[in-house]
């Protein structure tokens, strides 16, 4: 991933900052420039809650090479307390501890190490509460 994009996405990746449409109130995460519901273009920042539950999940047995050391791990779609859904990795829990309905919390983790000369990339992952 390019460093400028990573840098641009810091507010959403680090602090879960979503965009709330001032016209219809729909919360978009990641933030958008045009509201999917009403076509509005004005948004205010809304910080997402960190707690939610697993809506659906899958165990990754054969990951991309850079995540090979973490296999097997779970990727999940998490529904947060305010109904917003996002996709993320579930950190540290063995796959049999994660299922539909499992209560999770979003925490700050290192997402990608890359090669020795690259920038480290951080963001949110879920952990089982």
């Amino acid at each position, binding site marked *: 991933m390019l460093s400028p994009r990573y840098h641009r996405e*810091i507010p959403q990746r*680090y*602090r879960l900052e979503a965009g709330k449409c001032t016209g219809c109130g729909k919360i978009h995460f990641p933030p958008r420039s045009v509201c999917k519901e009403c076509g509005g273009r004005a948004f205010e920042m809304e910080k997402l809650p960190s707690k939610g539950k697993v809506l659906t999940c899958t165990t990754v047995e054969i990951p991309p*090479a*850079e995540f*090979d*050391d*973490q296999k097997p791990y779970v990727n999940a779609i998490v529904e947060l307390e305010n109904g917003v859904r996002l996709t993320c990795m579930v*950190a*540290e829990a*063995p796959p049999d501890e994660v299922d539909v309905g499992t209560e999770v919390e979003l*925490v*700050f*983790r*290192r*997402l990608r190490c890359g*090669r020795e000369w690259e920038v*480290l990339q*951080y963001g949110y*992952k879920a952990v089982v509460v």
Partner: protein
Amino acid sequence: MHGIVGWGSYVPRFRIKVEDIAGQWGADAAAFKRGLLLEEKTVPGLDEDTITISVAAARYAIARAGIDPKDIGCCYIGSESHPYAVKPSGTVVIDAIGAGPDCHVADFEFACKAGAEAMYVAYSHVKSGEMKYGLGIGADTSQGAPGDALEYTASAGGSAFIMGADNVAAEIVHTYSFTSDTPDFWRREGEFYPRHAGRFTGDPAYFHHVGSATNGILERSGMKPEDFRFAVFHMPNGKFPLRAGKKAGFTREQMEQGWVVNLMGNTYSGSSPTGLASCLDVAKPGDNILVTSFGSGAGSDSFIIRCTDRVTEIQDKAPKVRDQLAKGRIHLDYGKYVAYRGKIRMNQL
């Protein structure tokens, strides 16, 4: 009144037992456990480092303080395992907690003392009136060379302290530092593992500095060991702090709550700060706490801290140290452990 308005600690879920390290090297596990007074140590997850540990601890500290992170005017992180050689850990941490960009940021290094240093400088800024709140963090994901004595103790974790002038939960009433050129432990640029001068790390380094700083602050404050409910001394292993504390006139009972090393290992810059956090977790209004850090090289920072009525109001607003040490542990075997710590060279991707 100036002091701690919020504190938070974070330790990873992963552990390795002394038996599993000793077994790998054909060493006598019982002798190591007796010698170090250690059961197990924390191990960082594959996606954890000093930055993520600092963020977790800082978020807990903010939750306890109940403040707007925008009011934090400085962020200092003491560690000897900053993920970058060039680019401060604090730059990532302030954006993750929402304290930036109006914030003074620096990373500190002083072996195991860097966290106490970060706390001291953050406290001094607040005391001078330069800013409303200051954040000092000590965190590490320390490494010992395979088979080395340090491998049994070097662990991962950290604690964060928000200093301020209002809603103080624990007033910092005295500080004192004792420092000298003592080459007990070092790592030169480019080396992966630190070196230690064997027995030189004991009397001339640890005990001399911890003892001098502790005696110095007691003398300056006019306080006696029996005036304290808790005492915390840097924990490179289980034995050193108990011996240093006893020599300074403290009882095992005073040291017990902050003596988290047997279940955590030595979290370096996070060691004495996490011991302090463990005491704050259960302290009562009016309790006095003495903390003395130690960093090889060598130096000690001492603090005398007095809890206010606010301390009990915020204890339950974030996870406590001893709960984190007891709950949700995942034990690794030695093979998994070396992979987690990046001690084996894998094929390049």
